[in-house]
């Protein structure tokens, strides 16, 4: 679905490559989490996927990004946005209307969605994200978390095949973050939407993503299933990525020689591990 080949990009006046020889294939239906430290190139990679690079940022561009066979270099971002819905990191830069309903309508009208479809699209997008009750609320009165959901609903109404999200839970409380990821999982599993999400909280990725991509200094360092990536926790910590504390616990118990199984990625697995050590 997405194929990135030998992609290197350096922003105009940039001192180093923001993306350095990236090769990546993302299949239809994947739920890919992208993580890494600040400045690792995560946001630049999302820009390369939705065409913001090279169409809005000047710089040295080598290689190619193809979305369903179309080279993003030769395709306008507006054409790409028919396939890829993007939710930005700074939500206030994305929302343009003063009322929730208008925000969703804005994209639909711009994409010339027939009037007869509009009501159904608005209500189903609001329902999918669980914010039907906010439909007539002023956006200014919403919390950061509610705004994130409005942005997601506005994108969902356009029915993209791919959802590209840059740190969507950065302003959400833990419970809202989990709820947000449950919505993403539902969209992925039941609606077949391919999810690509940049996320610092690896605990969320370990619970919800199918695959994780770890970036450092513009390069892909690890790319694999959640367990394959978490298994390399010492490398992750070396890069500066905080592993779930249950992973640190299982590593410590391995070092102490009381546990020989695989690393834990969630509390359920950690409970089983501890019981296997201490129970009769």
């Amino acid at each position, binding site marked *: 679905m997405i194929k990135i080949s030998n992609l290197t990009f350096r922003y105009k006046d940039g001192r180093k490559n923001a993306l350095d020889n990236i090769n990546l294939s993302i299949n239809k239906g994947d739920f890919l989490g992208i993580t*890494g430290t600040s400045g690792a190139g995560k946001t630049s990679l999302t820009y390369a996927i939705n065409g913001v690079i090279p169409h809005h940022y000047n710089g040295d561009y080598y290689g190619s990004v193809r979305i369903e066979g179309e080279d993003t270099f030769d395709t306008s971002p507006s054409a790409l946005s028919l396939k890829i819905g993007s939710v930005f990191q700074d939500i206030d830069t994305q929302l343009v209307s003063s009322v929730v309903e208008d925000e969703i309508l804005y994209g639909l009208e711009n994409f010339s969605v027939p009037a007869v479809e509009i009501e159904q699209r608005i209500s189903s997008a609001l329902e999918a994200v669980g914010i039907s009750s906010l439909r007539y609320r002023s956006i200014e*009165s919403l919390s950061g978390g509610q705004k994130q959901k409005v942005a997601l609903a506005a994108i969902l109404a356009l029915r993209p095949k791919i959802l590209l999200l840059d740190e969507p839970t950065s302003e*959400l*409380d833990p419970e809202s973050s989990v709820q947000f990821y449950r919505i993403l999982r539902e969209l992925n599993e039941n609606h077949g939407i391919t999810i690509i999400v940049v996320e610092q909280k690896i605990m969320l990725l370990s619970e919800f993503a199918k695959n994780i991509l770890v970036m450092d200094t513009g390069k892909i360092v690890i790319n694999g299933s959640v367990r394959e990536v978490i298994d390399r926790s010492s490398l992750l910590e070396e890069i500066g990525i905080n592993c*779930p504390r249950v992973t640190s616990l299982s590593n410590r*118990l391995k070092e102490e020689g*009381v546990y020989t199984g695989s690393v834990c990625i969630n*509390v359920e697995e950690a*409970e089983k591990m501890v019981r296997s050590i201490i129970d009769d």
Partner: protein
Amino acid sequence: MIRLQNVCFNYDRDRTLTDISFHINKGEFAAIIGANGAGKSTLCRLLNGLLKPSSGSVEINGLDTGHTKSSVLARQIGFLFQNPDRQICRNTVAEEILFGLELLYKDREFIAERLEKVLSMFGFSAEDNPFNLSRGERQRLALASLIAVEPEILILDEPTTGLDYKECIEIMEIVREMNKKGTTVIMVCHDMEVVLDYAERVLVLSGGKLIADGETRSVFCMNDVLEQASLIPPQMASLAGRLGSGFEDVFTVEEMTELILEKSNEKRRVEV
């Protein structure tokens, strides 16, 4: 030092905070936690005088914020916004740090010394353009500008949002150092692991009400409070809760490892 008495606050007709009362002593490190929309940021803005209570009173070192100019309060309180871009307004790192210093002090030598001290403490280059820095670096710059004026009270609204783990630790260690030197710290934070690692006291807001106020570990044991506030406890506390009896008061990987090893040794002894 900080005293809130029966504080209520309304945005238009919506009641955001209801009957909040608490007292924070000099040198405390307190975290305000709660779900999105619980009123945490509003409470922060009441503490630094950006907002005035609709009823009740907020006192900072005996000054009622309702009758005190923000500029007077700013001498005592440093406020770190969630988004550093709402704080940074100058074209170089040095100018940004000097902004607050020059507003509050006149002695050129003193100002130059403070600038040098903060630049070296944070490892910044004086002439760097703040807007070419990463989000984490901009957050550090915003904090550096606050610390330069050495406020008695630091109020941090989500100081680690958008930062990677290394940057988060860097920021929090600086805050901890300030606290050790006597600065009172009040921090809004969604990361319960950070709250557990750094704050000694936690105030829990839910629906605009203060529903718990106590020592951090005690509050993280109050499952009903956490549930009411839609909060997820730190991972080791969740694990300890699932393991049940014998795992009370376990909050860190170190404590959990030690207890498991102890129990494992006991089991071996019994087997022998």
